[in-house]
């Protein structure tokens, strides 16, 4: 495909993909242009009306000037002439542009609009102009604000659809990959006899895949429940030291050859208020994340300490880390900051989002910190210390 044709095709594809945004964007621009044009038109109409009123006044003055010119004894007071209440006698040099037309044949005497008339005309002109300009500006502002809000809404919707498509793509990959391995293993075992020493490591790998799928399913369900705010947690005072010791002993998350080093600096009998199942899911996700992004470092640390009214649990890795400015971004749903992890350790990008959601539901906090890319990461779960 040649250069210009390629560009045209690319532009047409882009237009096709973004047709709704383009359509509404152009519509709003047209609407804004229409309102601007309407305001300018009304303002021009008002200017015409303003000139017309002075013209009318001039005609009126000319009529009365002619009338007075034919009177042998013109009245002292113009108001005695019916219909001449807008006018007054003036010296010709003070009557402005009305001078020539409104000379009533009295030496150096002209007719001029009364001060009150001019003030009224100018006041009405100002107020109508202000009204037209104000209404025009307000309408334009409202259209632009609505357009901007609409654009943001469409952009958010588009982003959400992209994220959802991306999530389903990942979920589909994550669900199918373990099945592929297990299915291939079962088909192989059905078709041929393998020596036991060759089968056992394969079975272990297959079991890991099943565990991975189980964890994925749990995360998906938990994510869905959290989104609907339907997860019922049952927080109760629990002895954290005992819980963490049991958790580490029965760890269900694959460490992929890494070592989990724990340092529990907790007072004997020290308690927090939490739901054990939710706490297990939070820790599973944090440990799983540390394994995924732990780089080449073999060690992961799990630490716990009491800090005043808070009890903190840290999960620390020494791997890929992240830019300190991205500390909040790591919790964004469906986001992963690095794709350099092997696919058997990739996930749906929901683990940390779920962990933070659960931490908040327990009345706690979950925060992340890192000194920078390549310098590891620290995830801190803070739970309220239970008074004993």
């Amino acid at each position, binding site marked *: 495909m040649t250069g210009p044709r390629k560009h045209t095709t690319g532009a047409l594809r882009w237009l096709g993909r973004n047709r709704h945004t383009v359509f509404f964007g152009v519509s709003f621009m047209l609407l804004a242009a229409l309102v601007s044009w309407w305001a300018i038109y009304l303002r021009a109409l008002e200017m015409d009306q303003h000139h017309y009123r002075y013209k009318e006044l001039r005609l009126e003055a000319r009529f009365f000037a002619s009338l007075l010119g034919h009177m042998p004894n013109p009245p002292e007071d113009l108001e005695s002439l019916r219909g001449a209440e807008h006018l007054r006698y003036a010296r010709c040099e003070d009557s402005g542009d009305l001078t020539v037309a409104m000379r009533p044949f009295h030496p150096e005497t002209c007719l001029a609009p009364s001060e009150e008339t001019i003030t009224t005309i100018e006041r009405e002109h100002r107020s109508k102009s202000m009204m037209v300009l104000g209404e025009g500006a307000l309408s334009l502002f409202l259209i632009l604000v609505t357009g901007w809000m609409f654009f943001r809404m469409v952009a958010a919707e588009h982003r959400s659809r992209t994220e959802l498509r991306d999530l389903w*793509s990942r979920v*589909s*990959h994550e*669900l*199918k*990959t*373990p*099945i*592929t*391995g*297990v*299915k*291939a*293993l079962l*088909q*192989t075992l059905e*078709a*041929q006899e*393998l020596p036991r020493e*060759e089968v056992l490591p*394969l079975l272990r*790998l*297959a079991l890991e*895949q099943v565990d991975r799928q189980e964890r994925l399913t749990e995360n998906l369900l938990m994510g869905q429940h959290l989104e609907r705010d339907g997860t019922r947690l049952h927080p109760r005072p629990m002895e954290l030291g005992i819980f963490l010791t049991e958790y580490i002993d029965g760890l269900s998350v694959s460490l992929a050859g890494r070592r989990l080093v724990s340092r529990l600096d907790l007072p004997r009998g020290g308690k927090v208020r939490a739901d054990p199942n939710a706490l297990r899911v939070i820790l599973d996700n944090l440990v799983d994340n540390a394994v995924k992004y732990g780089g080449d470092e073999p060690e992961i640390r799990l630490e716990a300490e009491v800090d005043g009214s808070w009890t903190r649990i840290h999960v620390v890795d020494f791997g890929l880390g992240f830019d300190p400015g991205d500390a909040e971004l790591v919790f964004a749903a469906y986001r992963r900051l690095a*794709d*350099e*992890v*092997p*696919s*058997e350790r*990739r996930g749906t990008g929901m683990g940390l989002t779920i962990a933070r959601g659960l931490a908040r539901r327990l009345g706690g906090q979950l925060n992340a910190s890192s000194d920078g890319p390549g310098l590891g990461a620290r995830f801190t779960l803070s739970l309220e210390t239970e008074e004993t």
Partner: protein
Amino acid sequence: MARIIVVEDEELIATMLRINLRGAGHEVQVFPCAEDMLEHLEHEIPDIVLLDIMLPGMNGDEALRKLRAMGHDLPVMMLTARKDAGLKVSALDGGADDYVTKPFDMAELQARIRALLRRNN
């Protein structure tokens, strides 16, 4: 029989492919990432490449285009869990000879490999 390169980072799938393809008499080499496979192609050209799409680092789609850009016209079969037509079109337009979605049937996969080898010969 044939020399086959498998680029697959999932250990269990890679192992099962190796066992089955070796069982069928092929010579199999497995690489966990596309970069290693491309480096290997500078020294030795296999008869067919089975290439996973979702790989760490360079993905299968990029690797395929790079492989074609290097001037290799050997048959390449893409393996992926994704079924969307856009991805298939992109892979086939990029020079793939076949496209198999996971979870695949081992017998069907082997039949497709045989068909590709026949066509190439």
